[in-house]
Every structure is written in C-alpha cells, then in structure tokens.
C-alpha cells in the first residue's frame, strides 16, 4: 500500500485542477484572502503611527501618494473586489441558489468586479487629474 495524498501530492494535483472553474475560483478566493490579511497587518502597522509618531505617519502617507503606490492601491481594490464578489458567490450557494450554475455565476461576479475596478480607476484618475 502506498500513500496517495498529503501536501506534496496536493500541490502537484491542484495545479492541474486549477484549470477547472470551481477550483480556480476557490484558489483565487484563498490567495486574495491571504494577500488581504498581509495587507491588513501592514496597514494597521502604518495607521499605528498616527498614535506613535504623527510626523512619520504624514511622511509615509506622502510616499504612498506616488503614482506607483496609487496603482498598487488599485491592485488592492481589485483584490478586495475579487475576494468580495467571490465571497458573495459562495454565500449564494450557501443559501441554495445557483449550485447548478456555479461556472456562469463565477464569471458574472468577476465581470461585476472588473466594472467596479474600472470605476475606481476612473474616480482615482479624476481626483488625481490624470484626464
């Protein structure tokens, strides 16, 4: 008898399975969720400076308003939208809706996320006077 499971096995097999919509959505949800956690910790660290040292906070925020960071902000917004819309999709299933239509619903949700990100980019560009 030989083992046919475990983390090394999972890694190998999930890469292939990720081409399927459901598995793709699951991995996307997981990765965006974990990235948001990393951001959350960094973010709370930065916000702490409002209390620890206000000047440092202002300096950091000035750095974060450079174009590079503004684009990263959009990436963050996209991550949150993708995770959020996917989370809504999962909760639709939990309520017993569309379990036979999961592939379609995934792409519908991603389309909504894409539109939201475009809208955010438009808002940001307007504020920054890009157009």
């Amino acid at each position, binding site marked *: 008898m030989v083992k046919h499971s475990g983390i090394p096995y999972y890694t190998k097999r999930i890469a292939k399975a990720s081409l399927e919509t459901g598995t793709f959505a699951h991995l996307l949800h997981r990765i965006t969720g*974990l990235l948001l*956690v990393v951001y959350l910790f960094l973010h*709370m660290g930065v916000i702490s400076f409002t*209390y620890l040292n206000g000047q440092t906070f*202002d300096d950091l*925020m000035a750095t974060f308003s450079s174009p590079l960071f503004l684009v990263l902000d959009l990436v963050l917004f996209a991550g949150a939208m993708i995770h959020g819309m996917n*989370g*809504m999709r999962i909760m639709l299933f939990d309520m017993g809706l569309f379990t036979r239509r999961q592939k379609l619903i995934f792409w519908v949700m991603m389309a909504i996320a894409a539109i939201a990100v475009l809208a955010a980019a438009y808002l940001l560009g307007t504020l920054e006077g890009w157009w």
Partner: protein
Amino acid sequence: MRQNIELKTSRRSFWLWFLQRVSSVGLIIVLLVHMLAWHYINPPELTHVEVSKRLGESIFFATVEALLIGFVMFHALNGVRNVVYDYFPKPGTRKIVSILLLVVGIALFVWGTFVLFRLVFGG
C-alpha cells in the same frame, strides 16, 4: 482495516462558520465605505491631523471604522484558521495554531481599537 470514526457535535465549529458569513456580509458594506471614503470619493488629505479631524466630526464614520476592525479581525484570522485546518490535519498543530490566532486576533483588535479611539478623540 476498519476504523471507527468518532463524530462529536461541536457548536464552536458551527459558530465559526456562521460568523464567517455574518462578518462577510458586514464587510461588504463597511469595507466599501472605508475604501471609497478614504481614497476614492472626496478623500481628505491623509495626514494624522486631517484623519483625526474627519473621524472626530462624524459619529457615523467612527462607528463604521470600529465595526470594520471587529469584522475584519475575526474574518481574517478565522479565514487563516480555515486554511490551516485544510493543510494540517494533526489535532496538536491545529490547537496550537488556533490558540495563536486567537491571541494575535485579540491583541490586534485591542490595539486597533485603541488607535482608533485616539484618532476619534484627538490623540
């Protein structure tokens, strides 16, 4: 070889799952308000004085931010717990990680709330 699996009810596992959904619904609203208001729609200048001023002026906004800390802390750390449970089946590992996440979560929640408190009431 036959193995008997013991299945005991765990109300805690229900509550963790259920609160993950509750916090999800909460986050949809609260996080959207947070990101739009600080960054996309009519944002203030992000200096500690301006941020503090806006939070101090609006009870609504301060409440949203307090809710955000609560929802996101539970949701994020319970999410990490879910991921850990998938990849590490050993009960010992799970227990240690669960306790660690609980401690980190409470500490960050208290610290975050304190920082927010100072911002709202002018630090």
